[in-house]
């Protein structure tokens, strides 16, 4: 069998990594500013553009879609080529994807401070940007599926299953959630109103966490963790079971954001029970990651890359246990609307996404520049300072959340609320807000140390833009059967279709009845949701009236 000489595209990976680091620093700085404003309101500079209400969505968009998004693409573009023994399907598509995504981020960074927003959480961007996101996502999808089709490896590795699930689900979520009626270039009204709006919003919001922050990073974990540890993946069986159960169950859990609301109670209950059933599939991923390190734990002590990954996977396990518990009605009654939730998402964001990204980048840069890491001491310092940052972020917010919740519900002897002014609960937990900002500062300092370390590393090596590899062509042999899942791993289109079916079921069962069956929505005579046109008219009336 003759070996073919091919070149892996490292340049696109490099571009995505640089974007990751830049937007990581920007997004976290904006987050820190928002954190400071909570105890020192003058930090909004007395400008409308930098008030909390505008920079909070800027922070979430920057860290989710710019920092984590770019890191996801870097990880996928690097691992996909090597797992499939082929260069990306089309270099032009790769670069359209890269520059398109950066332009979308730029548009977000301009429109959000200007106050141009759909006011839908995690989907604040206005309709022209929504369309651009859809187009660029399709470009990414074509590039990825194209690469899978021209592969030189018979079977798709578990990382690729997660990439496929990510691609199809984010496409569905984004399109369904973004139905809106444009009135001007920068203004639109959502197609949904009332409880339907809430349901669609949290079906989207919850699963954006699932399929933008979780599944792609499970894929990245499945490539980079065994690579860095130089150990075989613990259990193939576990991979199969936890992959399918995770993507099927995750999509149902959205209504747990809407407990004790006007959402029909059968939907609330489905949200609760599917959240509980999600513990095991999520932990399947954690176990497969941690157990892969069996026999390599001695190296975890020294290797910063492995340390970052271990804490990331552990944080994932903790957050995915905490989430289902928070979705139980009696726990939810205490924690909902408090700062506990902010701590919860940041354990996931800072711990799971952040640390996995750092581990991945520390591993990638020396390899792509064909050199050694400039300073493993600095990398270890980053690890400790980052861990400390997470602790300082999460613990004060947990305590603050409980204090808030107890104060909100405390009655005086005469039957009136003891703390009637919301401000009283806020001033009570000011020290917690300050500590949280300390945590954020520590975490950001760690990222700056990493940036310095990586720049030094790159300077000491030479970038390999096109990495040469010798690969065997795909044998023409005809396969007969094998394990059913093994067969599926050879058929990417069938696999993609099945993943799509798996993620559609939950959403359809929960959403369609509230759209079609009138009795499903509790109504009050005095409250009637506006149609987009009525909303538009109302806004004009308010603008022109008085």
């Amino acid at each position, binding site marked *: 069998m003759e070996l073919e000489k091919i070149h892996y595209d490292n340049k696109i990976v490099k571009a995505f990594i640089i974007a990751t680091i830049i937007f990581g620093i920007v997004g976290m700085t904006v987050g820190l500013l928002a954190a400071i404003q909570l105890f020192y309101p003058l930090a909004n500079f007395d400008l409308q553009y930098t008030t909390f209400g505008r920079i909070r969505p800027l922070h979430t968009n920057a860290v989710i879609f710019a920092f984590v998004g770019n890191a996801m693409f870097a990880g996928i573009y690097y691992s996909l080529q090597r797992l499939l023994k082929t260069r990306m399907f089309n270099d032009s598509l790769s670069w359209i994807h890269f520059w398109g995504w950066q332009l979308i981020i730029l548009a977000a960074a301009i429109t959000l401070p200007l106050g141009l927003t759909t006011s839908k959480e995690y989907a604040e961007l206005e309709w022209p940007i929504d369309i651009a996101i859809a187009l660029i996502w399709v470009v990414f999808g074509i590039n990825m599926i194209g690469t899978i089709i021209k592969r030189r490896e018979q079977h798709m590795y578990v990382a690729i299953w997660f990439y496929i699930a990510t691609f199809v689900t984010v496409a569905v979520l984004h399109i369904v959630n973004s139905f809106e009626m444009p009135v001007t270039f920068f203004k639109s009204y959502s197609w949904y109103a009332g409880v339907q709006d809430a349901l669609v919003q949290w079906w989207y919001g919850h699963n954006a966490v699932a399929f933008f922050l979780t599944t792609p990073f499970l894929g990245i974990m499945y490539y980079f963790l065994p690579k860095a540890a130089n150990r075989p993946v613990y259990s193939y069986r576990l991979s199969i079971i936890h992959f399918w159960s995770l993507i099927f169950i995750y999509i149902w859990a959205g209504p747990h954001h809407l407990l004790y609301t006007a959402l029909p109670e059968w939907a609330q209950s489905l949200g609760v029970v599917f959240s509980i059933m999600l513990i095991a599939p999520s932990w399947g991923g954690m176990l497969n990651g941690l*157990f892969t390190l069996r026999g390599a734990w001695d190296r975890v002590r020294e290797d910063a890359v492995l340390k970052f990954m271990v804490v990331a996977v552990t944080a994932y396990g903790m957050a995915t246990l905490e989430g289902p518990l928070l979705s139980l009605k009696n726990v939810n009654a205490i924690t909902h609307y408090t700062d506990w939730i902010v701590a919860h998402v940041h354990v996931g964001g800072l711990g799971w996404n952040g640390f996995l990204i750092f581990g991945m980048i520390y591993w990638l840069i020396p390899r792509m520049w064909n050199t050694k890491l400039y300073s493993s001491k600095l990398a270890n310092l980053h690890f400790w300072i980052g861990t400390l940052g997470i602790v300082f972020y999460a613990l004060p917010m947990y305590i603050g959340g409980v204090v808030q919740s107890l104060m909100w519900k405390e009655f005086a002897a005469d039957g009136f609320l003891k703390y009637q002014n919301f401000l009283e609960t806020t001033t009570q937990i000011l020290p*917690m807000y300050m500590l949280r900002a300390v945590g954020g500062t520590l975490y950001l300092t760690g990222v700056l140390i990493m940036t310095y370390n990586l720049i030094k590393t790159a300077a000491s090596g030479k970038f390999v833009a096109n990495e040469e590899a010798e690969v065997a062509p795909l044998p023409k042999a005809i396969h007969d059967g094998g394990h059913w899942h093994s067969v599926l791993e050879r058929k990417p289109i069938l696999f993609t279709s099945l993943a799509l079916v798996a993620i559609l079921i939950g959403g359809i069962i929960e959403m369609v009845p509230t759209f079609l069956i009138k009795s499903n929505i509790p109504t009050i005579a005095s409250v009637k949701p506006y149609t987009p046109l009525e909303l538009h008219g109302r806004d004009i009336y308010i603008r022109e009236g008085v």
Partner: protein
Amino acid sequence: MKRILIFFIMVLGLVTSSVGQATTETSVTSIWDDPMISFYVVVGFLFVVVILVLMVALYMLQVLNYMVKQATKERSERLGIVYKEEPSFWSTIWNKSNDFIPIEKEKEIMLDHNYDGIRELDNHLPPWWTGLFYGSIVFAILYLIFYHVSDTLPLQLQEYETQVAQADEQARKLKASNPVAIIDETNVAIVTDPVALADGKTTFLSNCASCHRQDGGGDIGPNLTDDYWKNGGSIQNIFTVVRHGVQGTNMIAWEGFISPDKMQNVSSYILTLKGSNPENPKKPEGELYVPKEVSSDSTKVQASL
């Protein structure tokens, strides 16, 4: 580095506990007034002692374990047998509960997969994990049955009704044991007692000052220190406005948030502001109000309304 970490966590513990204390201090006048305080101190002390004893016991066990191990090692050396360490109790449990295949036998379960050098093992599913998964599915089914089929557990509307009924019962008991004269527009009167006025001032500063300014000079809401009133300037008028709010303005109804006697106190306090001439007051709004002859007979006041 780890020492710094521990130090920071201790600082964090100290600061957070101070916030916790702040809340308890606001709700109870002082912790030391609690009659149970000596009980808490003793229990707390016992708790600390028990933990210390347990720690020492654990440490001694470890030392003992180590000595036994050393002794066996020496003996096997003397007898010329290769010493093989017994797996510890915990590692046996750990391996069993995860159904691990020993690392030495890994080759047997290595699959022929090789993706860019990544191999895959075919380890068993950890039994406790499988149990967790099945358990959560059983929980889900029971949950749905209890809430939606057998109606054993209350849904949110029932929960709400139960709680409201409980609160009503409490309110009834409170009223029966501690009858408070019902204050409304018909019998509200100006209070002059300094304690009541001070209470009125507290209510004013925490609820009214954000719109009417701390000195009552008016901002979003009207000036309360001049002789002009949009809805009348008698105690009854002011009480009515506080209680029911004013439709079409930012003045909300405070009934349900502030108790009737406190509404009476704050209304009386507002009347004491008259003529205080604060700096930069808001322009007069409404009509000039000339107080009628003050009468203690409430029926006459009624007629003047």
